[in-house]
């Protein structure tokens, strides 16, 4: 490719790093404020006891676990999607992958925080980790919460590396385009990258291996999250389809999150030239597919329960669909299925705006879905005398809101300090002709089955 276009690309994608408007600071201060309030609320909860939240007997899990599942779900945006796209080497992935992988890393960090926030004695959370302690206590590997610990650790490590490795050449680039302290910092981050053929080869093979490794891990993570529920003999939790159901839901909400993030970046970083409507088109199609898949899962689940007519399950089914949870339930159905399907299945409507609208709905809907999995079942277990109701209180609401702020904040800061679109991959993309794309695809697939 011509040096000119290469320089233009570099300039465009470095602009966010080099130029800073007051809006950026305003946004950061605003978000940081909310995050601090959230932390304060958590401290308040720890100091006064869990009673300041709305949970009660028998509804021992509510907002926090809902958020946990929600954020872990969102985390499936990136790594999984970008890994798949890398493997099939979809050309249009290049501007998308990094935005996606960042979501994964941050969403995982936030999600992994909730099991700790929700502990009665959070200061003892480290008892979940296997280490030789003087108490001679090891964690109980039969507990799905311990499985969570291992799954999330693996997934987080994997995703962060998956995100960071392709950033090295871009750090080198920033290093060469900046001076002074900033230059030295990026220089350190670049790890002395030169760009010799050997380095390029190693990097690319490593990425292929990671892509292959990360996919089963991602699937296992949300399956294990679903095990948190399906291992307990609780009506409508104890289900064999929860694994795939949760994974589908996770990818569903993940794509929605990605679309929104991309639209935001496109708007605020003025990189319309690199995030084209076609990217949204394609992601929109993916979202449509996942929406249909989700609908299929929900139907399969509900029909089985309804037809089976087990008294405990029916009680939960009834309270969600007809009872006090019905408004939430039907809202979920509309925003998760009716709206996305009707918008995205019409080509004309599958615009950036259309996709964003659908995605916002899906985020709300998927949060509700998790809430409707957690709470109604706990409130309606086998002995009706012990049924209960749940009302959230300001504490858990505040903490929930602040995690969304935290996500936004991290994202804003990241796109400030790292090229949110992988510059070198863009260059490769531009030099790559259609034929070579095909050859490459076949080669990568060849690597898959040596």
């Amino acid at each position, binding site marked *: 490719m011509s040096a000119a276009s290469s320089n233009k690309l570099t300039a465009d994608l470095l602009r966010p790093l080099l130029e800073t408007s007051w809006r950026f600071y305003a946004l950061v201060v605003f978000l940081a404020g909310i995050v601090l309030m959230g932390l304060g609320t958590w401290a308040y909860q720890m100091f006064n006891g869990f009673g300041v939240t709305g949970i009660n007997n028998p509804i021992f899990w509510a907002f926090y676990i809902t958020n946990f599942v929600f954020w872990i779900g969102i985390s499936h945006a990136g790594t999984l999607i970008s890994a798949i796209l890398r493997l099939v080497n979809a050309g249009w992935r290049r501007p998308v992958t990094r935005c996606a992988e960042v979501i994964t890393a941050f969403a995982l960090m936030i999600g992994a925080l909730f099991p700790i926030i929700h502990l009665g004695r959070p200061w003892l959370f480290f008892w979940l980790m296997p280490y030789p302690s*003087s108490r*001679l206590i090891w964690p109980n590997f039969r507990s799905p919460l311990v499985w969570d610990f291992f799954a999330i650790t693996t997934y987080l490590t994997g995703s962060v590396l998956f995100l960071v490795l392709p950033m090295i050449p871009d750090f080198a680039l920033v290093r060469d385009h900046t001076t002074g302290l900033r230059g030295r910092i990026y220089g350190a981050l670049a790890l002395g990258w030169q760009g010799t053929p050997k380095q390029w080869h190693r990097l690319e093979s490593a990425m292929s291996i990671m892509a292959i490794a990360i996919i089963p891990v991602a699937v296992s993570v949300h399956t294990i999250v679903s095990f948190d529920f399906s291992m307990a003999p609780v009506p409508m939790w104890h289900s064999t389809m929860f694994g795939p159901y949760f994974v589908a839901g996770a990818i569903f909400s993940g794509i929605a999150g990605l679309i929104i993030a991309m639209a935001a970046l496109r708007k605020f970083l003025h990189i319309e030239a690199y995030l084209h409507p076609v990217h949204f088109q394609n992601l929109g199609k993916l979202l449509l597919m996942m929406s249909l898949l989700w609908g299929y899962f929900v139907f399969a689940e509900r029909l089985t329960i*309804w037809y089976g*007519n087990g008294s405990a399950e029916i009680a939960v089914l009834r309270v969600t669909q007809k009872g006090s949870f019905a408004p939430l339930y039907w809202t979920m159905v509309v925003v998760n299925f009716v709206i996305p399907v009707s918008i995205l299945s019409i080509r004309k409507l599958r615009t950036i705006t259309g996709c964003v609208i659908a995605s916002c709905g899906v985020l709300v809907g998927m949060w509700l879905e998790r809430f409707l999995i957690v709470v109604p079942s706990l409130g309606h277990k086998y002995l*009706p*005398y012990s*049924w209960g109701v749940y009302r959230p209180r300001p504490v858990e609401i505040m903490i929930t809101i602040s995690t969304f702020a935290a996500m936004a904040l991290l994202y804003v800061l990241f796109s400030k300090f790292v090229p949110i679109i992988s510059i070198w991959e863009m260059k490769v993309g531009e030099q790559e002709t259609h034929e070579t794309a095909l050859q490459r695809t076949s080669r990568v697939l060849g690597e898959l089955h040596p």
Partner: protein
Amino acid sequence: MDRRNFIKLTAITGTSATLASCGNPEHQLIRFVPDEDLVPGVAEWKPSVCPMCAAGCGINVRVMEADVETTRSGQAGVVKMAVAKKLEGNAKDAISRGGLCARGQASIQITYHPDRLTHPLKRTGARGTGAFKEITWDEAIGELTGQLDALAASRDQKSLAFLTRPHRGRRTALAGEFLKAFGAPAPIAYELFADDVLRRANGISFGHEQLPTIDFARSRFAISFGADFLGTWNSPVAQSVSYAAMRQGRPGVRGGFVQVESRMSLTGASADEWVPVKPGTEGVLALGLAHVILANKLRPADAGRAGAAIDGWSSGLPDYTPARVEQLTGVTAKTIERLARTLVEQQPAVAFVAGPPLAQTNGLFHALAVNALNQLLGNVGQPGGTGFTAGSTKDEGRSLKSDTLASAKALLLDGANPVYDAPKAWKVRDSLAAIPFIASFGSFIDDTSAHADLILPDHSFLESWVDSAPESGSMDAVPTSAGPVMKPLYQTRATPDVLIEVAAKLKTPVALPWKTAEDVAKSAPAAASAQSAISNLQSALKYVAPAFDGEASQYPFYFLPYASLQFGDGSSAHLPWLQEMPDPLTSAMWSSWVEINPQTAERLQLAQGDLVDITSSQGTLRAPVMLFPGIAPDMVAMPVGQGHDTFTRYASGRGANPIAILAPATEPETGTLAWAATRVKITRAGDGDGRLIMFGGEMREHPHEHETR
């Protein structure tokens, strides 16, 4: 490992496996618990008597050493002393036989109540404001003797009134002696749910003016007319023990049990057959059963005095044919026939009555009618029937009427709380206001003692000598007494000691046969006076319809205030355990409520928890709705116990007091309050505001079984 270490261990891990865990890593946990958190100790068991009701259950008290912050001779500090830890029924006691009801279990909190009075008090503010100041015992006793001397000086001894609760054993006897010697009238005993009507009836029918002891254990069939004998009536623990023996105590024999009432009580819940009747017609049903038995000559017709008390008995009760009884009671003739035959076939069978039926204006009739039926069944004084415990005493006392306190110039309060549990119409508040001097011996400031000028707080029962002479509950019950199980926590004094001291300090001292509270408790009761008491009836009784206060057109609902399982007549509403104990039938905690039949509620568009105004001719109160399938559609019921103006942090201003809106109707023969003879109307006052607190969720085990999916 010795007991001490063991207790340490359990204190730490709070689980088993501590013993098993020698060699098990679990004992590693110990070093993570700071030593000061551990309270090792060894238990000792001491006998006492439960004070919560007149039943007089013998209990064992678990006593252990503890550090107590207390004041000894003006010196505040921490002392090691033996304190009570738990109350359990005494297995050797004829009444409790090792069992103890919820109220009994919770009575330990009387001793440790944070709002218990710790020293004598003198009123500073206006009466009823509860403004008091601390004084010494010398001042307090000086004040009391001064007031009594003043009465004596003005030759006005008879205007000294002593207000207590019935059946408080030797304590009442002491008061009686004191008053007699001082020249004042006998003590006034008041209790809302007193059984005077039943005692009178038993006097008439059987010559025992006393509550019956029912021998369920050897009975094959029991029919109870409104008696909540497993919950709140008479001697629930003893009756439960004996009831259990009737049900499962004999191989191959399971005694049957039918409950006749209009609102399902705790007892009704255990019945094999629950027979709802129109309020105030229970006696008619009893005579209907008797009619069938007589008409079919199923049993010898003679029912002695009991029969003679019923008009038309000798002629086979012509007015009580099943058909007519069905009209009056609402119980079908078929049921009456069947029940009558069962009563005769399942011998020995026993019939008894108590509670709401006797709280009607025609209460005595119901009691006599059931007595006659019982006599006809032929098991009075027989195994499996009713008997009368020997050796119980009858209080020589007066009962409280609307005018009893009018003449009083000085009033001594000992436990009774009429401001709370007497109908407003009696104007107890006003009479108190008119009395120049009021002294209370209570351990708490309650609705009544809030009006006192002087409070001389008594020890708690665990700190004092106690005695009991059970009136019923077991045929082999004997009067007993027991010493204190722990030292007093505070600057309190045993009321008997106070009375004795006052008696001696009066200008013209009053001679009492006792020197200390111990003597009083140990002294033998006066020779069983109950047996001798035989009352007679001018003429045999016939059924007259009960008179309800309030026109049915204007006040469409019967209003039933019932003794609550937790609070009885409200005297234990200040105990947190009982406040938080879910009511067995409704699962409500910390609340009062009005029970309404779901159909009625639907008609009035009332949902669970909605607020309603309940209005009688006497006034209005507001309470949340409790849907209650076990109550007649034309009746509403409220538990007594909540709605205190003043009764410690746990009960003050909580809920509503149904007694407040009762009409002052009385049973003519005994003049006791007919507390079930009021009618009310209900108007919706708004949506629920969370004042109805329930522990339970659904009230049915399969809530939606009849609905389609």
